[in-house]
C-alpha cells in the first residue's frame, strides 16, 4: 500500500476536487449556450413585435394576417402538463409505494425493469398509439371529441412519464432508513399510516425531485402532442378540442418551410425561450416548497 504523506494527499485531493467542479460547471456552460442561442434570435424577434402583441391571445405566425399572441400555445402546454400530471403522479407514487413496501423482492425485481422499458419506447410510437387506440376509445365515452384532442395526448404523455415517477419514487422510498419504519410499526401503526406519515415525508426530497423531472419531461414533450393533439393554436379549457403546444410549434415550424431570418423563424426561438423561463419558474417554486417541508433525519 502506497504511503501518503500530507502533501501528495492534498495535491491529489485538490486536483480531484477541481476536476469534479469542472464537470458540474458543464451544466452552467450548457445553459449559457442555450441562453445565447435563444436570446440572440429572440432579440431579433422583439425588434419587430412588441411585448404587448406577444402576450396576446391569437397565435398565427404563418397564416395571414399574422398574429403573435402566445397565450394559446401556453394554454396548450398547460393542458398537457396538468392532465398528464394528474394521471402520472398519483399512479406513479402509489405504484412506487407498492413496489417498495408491499411487493416481494422477486416481483419487484420483475416489475421495476418492466416499467422502465415503457420509458424507452420512442415517443412517435406513443403518438400513434394515442391517435389509433386511445382516441377512438375515448370517442366512445365522449362522442363530441374531435380526432385531434388534448385529452388523448395528455393521457399518453402521462403514461410516458409514469416510469420516471414510479422508479425514482421507489428509490427515494427505499432509501429511508428502515429504523424509522420499524419505529412506526413498534408504536402500532398500520403500514398505510407508516407510509403516509413517516416514509413519504422522509423521502420527500426524492419524491418531489421525481415529480419535477416528470413535469419537466411533460412540458418538453413534442411528438405525442404533435400527432395526437393537432396543430391548432387554441385558447380553451376543453380537453376534447385540438390544441397546439409550445413544443409542437417549435418542432413543426423548425422542420418546415420557414426561411431563415424572418419574424416567423425568430418566433421559434422566442417560444423556446419562454418555455425555458416557465420551466425555471416551476423549478424555483418546487425548490422553495421543498425547503419548507423537507425533514432531515440525520
Amino acid at each position, binding site marked *: 500500500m502506497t504511503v501518503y504523506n500530507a502533501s501528495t494527499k492534498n495535491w491529489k485531493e485538490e486536483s480531484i476536487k477541481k476536476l469534479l467542479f469542472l464537470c458540474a460547471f458543464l451544466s452552467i456552460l450548457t445553459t449559457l449556450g442555450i441562453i445565447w442561442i435563444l436570446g440572440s434570435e429572440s432579440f431579433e424577434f422583439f425588434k419587430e413585435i412588441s411585448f404587448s402583441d406577444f402576450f396576446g391571445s391569437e397565435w*398565427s405566425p*404563418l*397564416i*395571414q*394576417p399574422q398574429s403573435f399572441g402566445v397565450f394559446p400555445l401556453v394554454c396548450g402546454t398547460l393542458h398537457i402538463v396538468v392532465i398528464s400530471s394528474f394521471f402520472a403522479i398519483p399512479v406513479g407514487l402509489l405504484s412506487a409505494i407498492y413496489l417498495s413496501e408491499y411487493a416481494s423482492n*422477486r416481483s419487484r*425485481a*420483475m416489475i421495476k*425493469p418492466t416499467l422502465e422499458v415503457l420509458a424507452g419506447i420512442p415517443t412517435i410510437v406513443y*403518438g*400513434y398509439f394515442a*391517435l*389509433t387506440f386511445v382516441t377512438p376509445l375515448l370517442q366512445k365515452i365522449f362522442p363530441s371529441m*374531435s*380526432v*385531434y384532442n388534448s385529452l388523448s395526448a395528455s393521457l399518453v404523455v402521462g403514461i410516458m412519464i409514469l416510469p420516471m415517477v414510479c422508479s425514482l419514487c421507489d428509490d427515494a422510498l427505499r432509501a429511508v432508513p428502515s429504523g424509522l419504519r420499524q419505529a412506526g410499526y413498534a408504536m402500532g401503526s398500520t403500514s398505510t399510516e407508516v407510509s403516509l406519515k413517516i416514509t413519504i415525508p422522509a423521502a420527500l426530497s426524492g419524491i418531489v425531485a421525481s415529480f419535477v423531472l416528470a413535469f419537466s419531461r411533460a412540458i418538453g414533450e413534442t411528438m405525442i402532442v*404533435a*400527432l*395526437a393533439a*393537432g*396543430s*391548432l393554436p387554441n385558447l380553451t379549457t376543453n380537453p376534447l378540442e*385540438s390544441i397546439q403546444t409550445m413544443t409542437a410549434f417549435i418542432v*413543426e*415550424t*423548425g*422542420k*418546415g*418551410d*420557414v*426561411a*431563415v*431570418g*424572418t419574424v416567423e423563424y425568430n418566433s421559434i426561438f422566442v417560444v423556446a425561450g419562454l418555455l425555458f423561463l416557465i420551466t425555471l419558474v416551476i423549478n424555483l417554486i418546487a425548490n422553495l416548497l421543498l425547503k419548507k417541508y423537507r425533514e432531515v433525519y440525520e
Partner: protein
Amino acid sequence: MNKSMATISLLIIIGITLFMIKGDKEDILNQADKQLSGTINIDGSSTVYPITEAVAEEFHKKYPKVKVIVNYSGTGGGFKKFYNGETQINDASRPIKSKEETEIKKNKITYIELPVAYDGLSVVVNRKNPLFEDDNAYISTDELKKIWEPGSKVQFWSEVRDGWPKEKITLYGPGVASGTFDYFTKAINGKEQASRKDFSPNEDDNALVKGVTGNTYALGYFGYAYYIENKKLLRALPIKQGNHPAVPPTAITIEDGSYQPLSRPIFIYVNAEAAKDPALKTFVEFYLDNAATLSKEVGYVALPSQVYDLAKKRFSDSTTGSIYATGQKLPLEQLLKQ
C-alpha cells in the same frame, strides 16, 4: 432481475448478432463503376425525400463506393444547409424563394434547378360522403376558395352549393409550415399562407388520413401518395377550374397537366461547383435518368419525357439560376425552354 432474465437478454443479443453475421451480397459490376467514390450530402423537403431515397438506393447498387447520405429537415432548413455548403443537393417541394436567393448569392454559391417529378395535391372526402357518390361529382376551385379563404365563415356544406345538406364540414389540412400548405393556399386562395385559421392541421399526413376517414362529412387535402394508399376509405374529388371540365387526380391527368391547379412540380437544387465532381455528376445524371420510373414507384407522378430531356440539358450545360426568376406563369416545359 435475476440471472435468468440476464441470460435471456444475453441470448436475445446473441441471436441478433448471429442474424447480422450474414455478410453482404456481392454484385457483379464493371471495374469503372466499382471505383467511383465520394460523399454526397442531400437534405431538404420530406415530400421529395422518398424519390431521392429510391434513387440513392439504386445508385448504391451500381456504385457502392459512393456514400450518399439523405436527410429531410424541411425545404427551408435544407436550403440553409445548402447555402452553407454543408449539402450538395437540396430537395425542394417548391421553387427557391427570393430571400433564399439573396443568402445563396451572399455565400457565393451557384445552383442548378432541376424538376424531378409531379405531386398531385388531392382534395379528399370520406368515401361514405353522400354528396360525391355520383360519377359526375366534382368541386370547383371557386367553391374551394369559398371554404378555405381567410376569414371564411363557411360551416356547413349547404353554404357551399345549393341543394347540399346542412351538415358540418370538418376541415383537415397539412401543417402550416409545410410546402404543401403554401402551395394549396397559393393555388386556391391566390396568396401563399392565406387561409382560414379554424381548421384541424396536422404535420403528419397519416394523421390527416385518420381525420378524414373518421368523419363522414370531412374535407381534407394532402399529397397524392397518401390518397392512393387509402383509396378504399377516401375519395379524391375532381377539380373544376373555371369553364374547363372537372378533372380527377390520376397518374395520367397529373402528368399531362390537365389536373390543375393542384399539380405541382418538385425539384432538386444542385450546387453547380460541386457538380464538377464525377461522383456528384454521375449521381445527378442517374437521378434524372431514373426519376420517371422511381417516382411512380413511390407514389408520385413522372414528368413528361421531354421535360426530363430539357432538365438533363440544363444540367449538362450547367445553367444556373431559377426558371421562376422572371415571375412568369408558364407551364414547366416552356419555362425550361427559355
